[in-house]
C-alpha cells in the first residue's frame, strides 16, 4: 500500500490526479464552511445580483435568480461524489458475484448469467439509464438506482473473464484436489486475483458515474432543482449562450476537473497494480 502510494506519487500525472481528487473531496466536505454563500444551495433568490458575470464577490458569477455559482458548484460536488460512492458501493459487489459464479461454475449457470449480462450490455449504457428514468420519478435515489442497474454488468463481465481463466490455473486445481469447498475456492482463491482489476476499474468508473449522472440531470431526468447539480446547471445555462457564458462554462469545467482527477488517478493505479484494459 505504502509502496503503491510512493510509485503513484512518483508519476507527475498520477500525483496531479491524486491532488485533484483530494481537493474536490475536501471542498465538497467543507462546502458549508468555505462556500461564500452557504444558503445558495437551495431555493433562494437575490434578484439584485441576478445574472452577474464573474467578479471578486462572485468568482464564477451568479445565476438567473442571483445565486452564487461557485457556492452551488461546491454543493453540487457533494451530490456527485455521494452518488458516485453509493453506485460504486452497490454495483461492483453484485457484478463481481455474478461474474464469479458464471466464470467458476461454468455450464448452464455460465450460459444463462452471461446471456443476461449480454442483454444489459447490448443497450447503450446511457440509453438504459434514460429509459429507466423515463418511467421512474426523477429523484436522486432513482438516479442512483438507474445508474446501478446499468453498471453492474460491466463488473460481471470483467470478473467473469478473469475467473474463467483462473479456473484452469494450478492453484485452483490444487485447491480442488485437496477438497476445498466451492465457496472457499471462489471467494478465497479466485476473488483476490480479481481485486486489482476491480479496484482500478472502480477508480476509473468514479469519473464515468459522475459523467452519466450529470448527463441524466442535464436531460432533466436526474436530481431536481433546487438541489444544485452540475448537469442541470449546464442545461439551464445553455439557453443563455453566448452572453451568460459563465452559467454553463464553470459547472462544465467543474465536471471536467473532478472526472479528470479520477481518470489520472485510475490510470496511474492501473500501472501500479499492473492491470490491463
Amino acid at each position, binding site marked *: 500500500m505504502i509502496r503503491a502510494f510512493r510509485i503513484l506519487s512518483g508519476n507527475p500525472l498520477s500525483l496531479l490526479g491524486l491532488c485533484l481528487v483530494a481537493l474536490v473531496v475536501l471542498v465538497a466536505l467543507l462546502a458549508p464552511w468555505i462556500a461564500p454563500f452557504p444558503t445558495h444551495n437551495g431555493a433562494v433568490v437575490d434578484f439584485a445580483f441576478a445574472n452577474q458575470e464573474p467578479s471578486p464577490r462572485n468568482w464564477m458569477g451568479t445565476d438567473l435568480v442571483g445565486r452564487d455559482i461557485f457556492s452551488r458548484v461546491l454543493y453540487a460536488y457533494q451530490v456527485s461524489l455521494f452518488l458516485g460512492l453509493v453506485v460504486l458501493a452497490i454495483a461492483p459487489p453484485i457484478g463481481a458475484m455474478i461474474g464469479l459464479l458464471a466464470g467458476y461454475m461454468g455450464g448452464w449457470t455460465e450460459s444463462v448469467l452471461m446471456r443476461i449480462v*449480454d*442483454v444489459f450490455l*447490448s443497450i*447503450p449504457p446511457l440509453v438504459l439509464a434514460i429509459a429507466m428514468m423515463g418511467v421512474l420519478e426523477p429523484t436522486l435515489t432513482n438516479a442512483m438506482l438507474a445508474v446501478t442497474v446499468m453498471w453492474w454488468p460491466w463488473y460481471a463481465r470483467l470478473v467473469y473473464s478473469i475467473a474463467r481463466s483462473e479456473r484452469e490455473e494450478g492453484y485452483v486445481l490444487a485447491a480442488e484436489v485437496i477438497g476445498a469447498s466451492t465457496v472457499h475456492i471462489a471467494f478465497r482463491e479466485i476473488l483476490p486475483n480479481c481485486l486489482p482489476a476491480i479496484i482500478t476499474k472502480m477508480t476509473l468508473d468514479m469519473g464515468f458515474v459522475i459523467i452519466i449522472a450529470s448527463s441524466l440531470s442535464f436531460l*432533466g431526468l436526474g436530481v431536481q432543482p433546487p438541489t444544485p447539480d452540475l448537469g442541470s446547471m449546464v442545461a439551464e445555462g445553455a439557453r443563455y*449562450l453566448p452572453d451568460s457564458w459563465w452559467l454553463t462554462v464553470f459547472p462544465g469545467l467543474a*465536471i*471536467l476537473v473532478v472526472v479528470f482527477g479520477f481518470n489520472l488517478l485510475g490510470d496511474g493505479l492501473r500501472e501500479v497494480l499492473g492491470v490491463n484494459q
Partner: protein
Amino acid sequence: MQSPVLRLLMRRLGISLIVLIGVSMLIFSIARVIPGDPARIALGPNATTEQVANLRAEMHLDDSLVVQYGHFVADVARGDLGMSLYTNRPVTLDIAQFLPATLELVLFAGVIMVACGLPLGILAARHKGRWQDNLVRLFTLLTVSAPSFVWAVILMLLFAFYLPLFPIAGRISDIYEIERVTGFLTIDTLLSGNLLAFGNALSHLVLPACALALSGIGQAARLTRANMVETYDRPYIEMAQAYGFFPSRIARMYAFKPSLIPSLTIIGLDFAAMLGNAFLVEAVFAWPGLSRYGVAVILRKDLNAIMGTVLVIALTFLIVNIIVDLLIAFLNPRIRHSTRASL
C-alpha cells in the same frame, strides 16, 4: 463446404436474436413492473377513471404479464410499436422520421473517431515513453473526462459564437428545400444535385459530430496504443527488424493490422456510447433526431414511444456489432480460415 465467415454470421445472428428477445423482455419489464399504473401515468392526473380504463383495455393491461408480453412481441414482430401519445402518430412512423438524422450524426462521428483515434494511438505507441506519448495520453485523458454535452457547449461557444465558422444549431438552413429520399441530408442534397445545400448540411454536421466523437477519439487512441505496444513486443516484430524493414513500414505493415483487430471490438462499444451520448449532443445543437424525440417522449411518460425508441437503438447497436464482428473475421485470418469459428 460452408465458409467460416458465413457460419460466424449465422452464429452471431442467432445470438443476436436471443439477446434481442432478452432486450424486449427487459424493456417490457421496465415499462410494466415499475410501480404505478402505466395508463394513469400516460394520461396524467387529470384523466377520468373511464379514460384510464379504456386505455388499460387497449394496452391489454388487465391481462397477465405473460399475455401482455405476448401481445407486445406479436405487435413488434408485425412492426407495430403502438401509438405515441405525444405525437398522436404510430411510433414506427416517428422513428422512421427521426432515426436517419441520428444515424447520420453518429456515423459521421464514428468516422471522425476512427480517423483521429487510430493515428493518435499509433503515434503514441511508436514514441512510447517520449513526449509525443505523454501528449497523447494527456489529450485522451482530457477528452474522456467530460460528458459530451460539455464538449458540445464548449465547441459551440468557440466555433459558432466567438469564431462564427459553423452554424449554431439544426441540420440545414431553412432556405433549402430538399426532397427526402434516404433521410441522410448529406446524401439527399447530393442526390438532388444541390452542392450548396450539401455544403450547408455538412457544415451543420461538423460541430455536433466532433462533440460526439471527442471522448470516442480518446478511447480509440488509448486502446490502439495499448495494443500496438503489446504487438511491438511480439517475436514477429523483432523478426521484421532483423530483416531490416524500415520502422515506418514495420509500424504500417507488421504492427498495425494485428493491433487493429482488438481495437475494433472497442470501437463497436464506443459506437454504443455514441448512440447514448447523441441524446446529449442533440439537445445542445437542437438536432432533430431520435434522441431528441426520445427525451421528449420520456418527459411525457409516453410508454409506447419510449419502448420503441430503446428497442430501435438496441437493434441498431446489435447490427453495428455484427458488422464489427464480420470485419474482424475478415481481417483476422485465424477466424477466416479456422474450421471452428469461435466467439
